């Protein structure tokens, strides 16, 4: 892991508060999703990001509007930080026509053309070749665009991971690979799935610059992301950023978590990204209690409005079931 003074972001108070706000916004949103799931408003699979918020919040704001994002089925955080409206995201989970994928994707498949959000991909590793192709198009046209591709430690065992890293390095494509290493591929621990658990080293075998960062520290993630995105933009080569993080909740809503000790979860709680960052801000007198309270109030209002939007949404008419299997002829 490399860092130098020049890469340390100048952490203005406003910026620090924004980082905190974004992490809390994801957390509260997902707490509401959990509640709505228990009420059977949201069905299907629901994968929560609890504990990993510092990764999306550290990486995505560093990207430009023209850049592209490819995510996984655990993508609520990425979508919200990227600017997918909370209203259409939650309407999608309701399965409503107003949802960002018109109710055809659900929690795992949030797509949004307006923010170049190329979706939650629910096949582990399936998004990596896509990211390579998006970057290939930009490379061939000479466009100054970076594609950020998020995936978990489980994807590292897939052939598509290796094929994609090789292609991106071989063809010199502007992809930022962001590995969200939460130590479990569903319920299988990293040490049981990988012969080399220092995942970022794998990128080096493809001659790709890589680093690992504390994924529970939003400031560290952001600093690393700045280095990484700048490197991709300047060199037009791929870069591999491993964010070491932890998922506090179950893999999905159907997971009894038989595969890990409560003690392990409690040990990681000491690094919990929101409490940790807020504590740091308090120690350094960068946040006032009323500011923290205001953040909570504003987010709560946004969530209430988003839920109301979803509740008021309509169901896609069943007659439209087979629309969008193919493009509709215009005119």
């Amino acid at each position, binding site marked *: 892991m490399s860092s130098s003074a020049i890469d340390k972001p100048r952490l203005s108070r406003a910026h620090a508060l924004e980082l905190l706000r974004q992490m809390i916004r994801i957390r509260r949103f997902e707490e509401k999703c959990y509640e709505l799931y228990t009420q059977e408003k949201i069905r299907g699979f629901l994968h929560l990001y609890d504990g990993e918020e510092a990764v999306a919040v550290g990486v995505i704001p560093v990207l430009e509007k023209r850049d*592209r994002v490819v995510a996984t089925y655990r993508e609520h955080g990425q979508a919200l930080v990227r600017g997918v409206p909370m209203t259409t995201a939650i309407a999608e989970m309701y399965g409503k026509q107003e*949802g*960002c*994928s*018109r*109710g*055809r*994707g659900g929690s795992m*498949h949030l*797509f*949004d*053309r307006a923010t170049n959000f*190329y*979706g939650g*991909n629910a*096949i582990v590793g*399936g998004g*990596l*070749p*896509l*990211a*390579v*192709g*998006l*970057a*290939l*198009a*930009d490379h*061939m046209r000479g466009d100054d665009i970076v594609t950020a591709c998020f995936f978990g430690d489980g994807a590292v065992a897939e*052939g*598509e991971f290796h*094929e*994609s890293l*090789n*292609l991106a390095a*071989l063809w010199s494509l502007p992809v930022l690979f962001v590995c969200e290493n939460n130590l479990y591929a569903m319920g299988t621990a990293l040490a049981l799935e990988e012969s080399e658990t220092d995942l970022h080293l794998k990128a080096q075998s493809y001659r790709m610059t890589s680093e690992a960062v504390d994924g529970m520290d939003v400031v560290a993630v952001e600093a690393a992301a700045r280095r990484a995105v700048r490197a991709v933009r300047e060199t037009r080569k791929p870069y591999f950023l491993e964010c070491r993080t932890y998922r506090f909740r179950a893999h999905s809503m159907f997971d009894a978590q038989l595969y890990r000790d409560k003690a392990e979860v409690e040990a990681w709680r000491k690094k919990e990204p929101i409490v940790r960052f807020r504590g740091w801000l308090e120690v350094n007198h960068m946040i006032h209690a009323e500011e923290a309270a205001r953040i909570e109030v504003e987010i709560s209002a946004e969530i209430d409005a988003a839920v109301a939007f979803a509740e008021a949404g309509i169901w896609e008419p069943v007659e439209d079931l*087979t*629309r*969008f*299997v*193919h*493009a*509709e002829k215009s005119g």
Partner: protein
Amino acid sequence: MLQRQASSEMLELTYREAVRQAIRDALTRDQRVFLMGEDVGRYGGCYAVSKGLLAEFGPERIRDTPLSESGFTGAGIGAAMAGMRPIVELMTVNFSLLALDQILNNAATIRHMSGNQFGVPLVIRLATGAGRQVAAQHSHSLEGWYAHIPGIKVLAPATIEDARGMLWTALEDPDPVLIFENVMLYNMTGKLAADAGPVAIDKAAVRRTGRDITLITYGGSLWKTLDAAAALAADSIEAEVIDLRTLRPLDDQTIIASVAKTRRAIIVDEGWRSGSLAAEICTRIVEQAFWELDAPLGRVCSEEVPIPYARHLEEAAMPQPSKIVAAAKAALGRT
């Protein structure tokens, strides 16, 4: 169907050259088009289809790939989503199984799953079929499998004209199109207008008209079926031969109109019989023209066996003119 004017100059060329010319046309016409696949560049293509194109268009647009079928097929999907018009060559359908995740879970799915926000205007070319004594792992005919999937179109050009013209139309399609080129056709020669252009990809073609029985087929089996029809004609049986051309979506109208006329049908399909495209066509005929039929439908498919190496076994495993003749005569109650 778009047809050429009879006045243009006619050229003699192979199926392989027709596909090459189609690719060259596309690369010349549209800067967004590029060809990507294993050995398409320096080697000239496994079946020499892209020979010479590297020198003409350079390595960015005639892009040799590693043996990473899933990786470069997915890259084609991503590039298509970002506005390019990639032609991915998967060398053979046998290797496409390594890219099946990308084809099914991404290419075929993303438009619907994203609520129409993203499309995948990608063309995938694959060689298919048996007959070259390359044994089980190189002789599959899986186009019927792909025809099962909503969200993609599946083409099987059997003629020089379609080999040249289908790619053009496919590249104009806003959604993914798979083009299956039967390996036994690459050396076939025929005449084609020098300025041959695009052809429709939503219609079957009647390649021979007849009143006694309809023989429905596609791709490499078309020529065997036409041979069978000629043999039947010698016995005063006039068979109508339909070339499906497009396996998804199927042109029900042309099939049903012919069966309504002849009242009998045999489907010839190089795929295995169980769960085959032939089974799907039989079902549609039964659903839509049951009362028109004078005889049970028949099928000539590949035998239910991995395609073997030895020539006599391979030939026995595949549809052949003699089997088609026998099936047609059985349907007509003739021996």
